[in-house]
């Protein structure tokens, strides 16, 4: 193998590429005249830093790291620091969407993080409740009997006759088609009924008075004859019953407000010039 061939083969090696690229960068910086500060090529790990590494490890593993584990953490930290510094020297932190977003979200978080330690007083929550009681009202709860009639696409096959018979005292337990749905739901809230029978069926229940058999009421399964037994209407909730939900909503809204305010304060100190093409 001639020298030239050897050189050509060597140039195909990835490691050689890496070294050449490194050399090129080094030459570039040397040429640009940015002298590398020898201090910035010194990495000093202080005792406090070691303690911090160990403490963070301990929080994940619930025990302090052993000596070899500490050594591993330090090795990893040094590696990260070397790459980090060299990366900064090369300007790799510039124009990086991920780094920019990350710093932005840290700032946004800082604006509202103090909120964690705050709790709103009763008056604040009561005002929130009074403003929109409907949003905090408990679901209506229904107790009823239902007979299922298998009917494709809502055909009311025989439902009217069955209804007449029922209201004359026919035994409802013996009527209807089999299906895996509860026949006599007991004090079930509207949301749950909508999940099991479908939204349309749940909405229909509000119009059925307790006492007589009524229907047919369509659901996603077919038709139902329904005898309402008891309706517990949704009432205006008391503060104590919905306190957590009120507090959650207060917190979510306050986070938004504080972020907006913090941003506005910062923005006010800037002059923004926009050249539109």
């Amino acid at each position, binding site marked *: 193998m001639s020298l030239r061939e050897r050189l050509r083969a060597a140039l195909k090696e990835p490691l050689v590429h890496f070294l050449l690229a490194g050399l090129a960068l080094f030459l570039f910086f040397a040429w640009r005249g940015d002298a590398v500060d020898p201090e910035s090529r010194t990495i000093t790990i202080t005792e406090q830093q070691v303690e*911090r590494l160990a403490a*963070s490890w301990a*929080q*994940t*593993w*619930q*025990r302090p790291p052993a000596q070899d584990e500490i050594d591993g953490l330090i090795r990893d930290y040094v590696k990260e620091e070397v790459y980090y510094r060299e990366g900064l020297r090369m300007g790799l932190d510039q124009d990086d969407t991920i780094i920019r977003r990350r710093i932005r979200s*840290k700032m946004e*978080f*800082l604006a509202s*993080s103090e909120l*964690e330690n705050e709790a709103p007083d009763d008056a604040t929550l009561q005002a929130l409740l009074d403003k929109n009681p409907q949003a905090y009202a408990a679901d209506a709860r229904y107790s009823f009997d239902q007979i299922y009639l*298998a009917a*494709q*696409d809502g055909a009311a096959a025989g439902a009217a006759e069955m209804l007449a018979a029922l209201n004359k005292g026919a035994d409802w337990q013996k009527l209807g088609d089999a*299906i*895996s*749905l509860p026949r006599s739901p007991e004090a079930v809230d509207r949301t749950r009924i909508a*999940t*099991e*029978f*479908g*939204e349309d*069926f749940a909405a229909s229940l509000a119009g059925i008075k307790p006492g007589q058999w009524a229907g047919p009421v369509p*659901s*996603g*399964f*077919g038709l139902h004859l329904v005898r309402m037994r008891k309706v517990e209407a949704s009432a205006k909730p008391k503060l104590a019953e919905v306190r*957590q939900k009120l*507090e*959650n909503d207060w*917190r979510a809204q306050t986070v938004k407000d504080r972020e907006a305010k913090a941003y506005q304060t910062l923005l006010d100190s800037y002059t923004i010039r926009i050249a539109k093409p």
Partner: protein
Amino acid sequence: MITAKLVESVWAQHVATVERYNQPGKFTAFIGYEFTSLVKGNNLHRIVVFRDGVEKFGKTMPFTALDSKDPEDLWKWFANYEQTTGGQVLGIPHNGNLSNGMMFALNDFKGGPLTADYARRRQYWEPLTEIVQAKGESESHPFLSPNDEFANFGKAGWDVGNLDLSATKTNDMFASEYAREALKRGLMLEAKLGINPFKFGMIGAGDIHTGLSTSEENNHLGETFILEPSAERAMRTEKRGSITRFGWQSLAAGLAAVWAKENTREAIFDAMRRREVYATTGTRLQVRLFGGWDFSERDLKGNWVKQGYARGVPMGGDLRPATSKAPSFIISALKDATGANLDRIQIIKGWVDASGQTHERIFNVAWSSPETRKVSKDGRLTAVGDTVDLKTATYSNSIGAVELRTVWRDPEFKPGVRAFYYARVLEIPTPRWPAYDAARYQFALPDGVKAESQERAYTSPIWYSPKVAP
């Protein structure tokens, strides 16, 4: 060091938020996170779910893919968490389909052989696998199951490369990516190691990054904010090298269904741990599966759920010791209250023979309109039909059944052969979300776009072992 403090307080705030929204009996919020291990673009993600509230969880900081990419290190951390806090945790791998052969590989993360110890830990720490979400379905693949006419659900675009499309996929990778094959290989490994590393139940999930639970096709609000409804999103492309992935290839979402006695962290977690769960492709159909030795059609006349638990085991369990010549199963499915009718219930059986060879077979066990639809000699059932109108993105429940239920006895049972059984329930064909987009924004879907599908549920398996599993 302000950053270290910030990370701590972000996590503490997250945990506090979960606590504030968890309402036992009404709305369950779990403390959890994602272990996002990615190896050269190959997806090894795990969802991590804790059973505990903050009183046990305390100030625990999560173990993330920044600490290690090796799932065995995650399990080590799980064990440590349980020992030090007295709490409980489990991991759920997802998107085996984007792991380029790594998710259910026949070697460990470092390349070493699977051992009994590995199998024991994997089975314990990862009792579930997520098989459906926006980024495709990972239950079965037509390459692995050429006789399964329904194995092609959610494959287009997802079976061509790994997660970030940095590497193409080759046929030899499929076997260690898909759940059904892993379940079969699990039996083979159990024969060899004495314990099955791939003994998992199956769930679906959203992967929806918007915080909205909109899993249906007609309310698909997109996996991320850039995929919100528009006339363009179906044809959005993600391109890398020679591979292109299209927006329409995303699935709307999957759902995890859990058979728990209460809507609480404890009850739901315990059900997940015993694998009493099933996966759906986004619809809320109700599916039951019980395995025993003496179920018969007569049971269906009475309280069969009670009998199912009393004389058998539910999905996710191990068949009890044999008391008859073949196991029988109660299988029941009720349609989604606001969704499509049902086409059929199938039982998928996998087994391993004495030579270590794995097999699978699909049995059609219950279907709509049995008077007109028949099973042919090769085991195929007449198709249910198709009422989808793509112009309006509508369908009609004039075909299919509201509820299907049967008792099925394995006609090919061999007492000496390890096997598993799970149910797959298919709905009638319905429009997919791109079809709703096309109808709403008034544009024509280009050729090749999959505009309709048969949504479905897959239960966790019930296993049979000649020697009862420990």
